[in-house]
């Protein structure tokens, strides 16, 4: 299998795993609060399924990264390092802002996830542009 077709195959796999995980997250969130709020066993079951799909997504992402060439891996590594730093620094600052009542609302994990995603995406684009 050529490099291009291998990457295409792995990208599709990663997209499928990611979509499945996102869907299961929505099922856990909305299903457990709106559809089956009293059924504890079902709640635990869909949560375990969500975790299993998450593990699959991580493994799929690992395989995708390993299939990239050395420059692409370097760009992804830099993006991961920057987004990890942003997550730790931004997350702690956000939490402290909540604890010290600097912000009027409770800190939500979803904002941290968005920060990680946006930071990773921007870092990736900047990295790709710098080696052009």
């Amino acid at each position, binding site marked *: 299998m050529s*490099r291009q077709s291998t990457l295409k195959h792995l990208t599709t796999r990663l997209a499928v795993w990611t979509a499945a995980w996102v869907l299961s997250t929505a099922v856990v969130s909305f299903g457990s609060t709106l559809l089956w709020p009293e059924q504890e066993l079902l709640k635990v079951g869909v949560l375990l399924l969500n975790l299993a799909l998450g593990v699959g997504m991580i493994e799929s992402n690992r395989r995708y990264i390993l299939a990239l060439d050395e*420059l692409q891996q370097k760009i992804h590594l830099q993006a991961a390092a920057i987004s990890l730093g942003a997550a730790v620094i931004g997350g702690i600052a956000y939490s402290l802002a909540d604890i010290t009542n600097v912000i009027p609302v409770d800190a939500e994990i979803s904002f941290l996830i968005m920060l990680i995603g946006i930071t990773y995406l921007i870092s990736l684009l900047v990295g790709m542009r710098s*080696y052009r």
Partner: protein
Amino acid sequence: MKNRLKVLRAERNWTQADLATAVDVSRQTINAIEKGKFDPSLPLAFKFSRLFELPIEAIFFDDDDS
């Protein structure tokens, strides 16, 4: 680190995509190496060496050597 990849490629009438396929990397990586923005690993340098049938030091050289 500088290199003669662009010259060696041009001598063979290869595109960046041709060279990328031959050494199993992306075209962007070939472009970055040719422009001196990215230094390849030793295994990739050996691939270039085998492909062009030249020793590594005939393809890649230190900036100070030029």
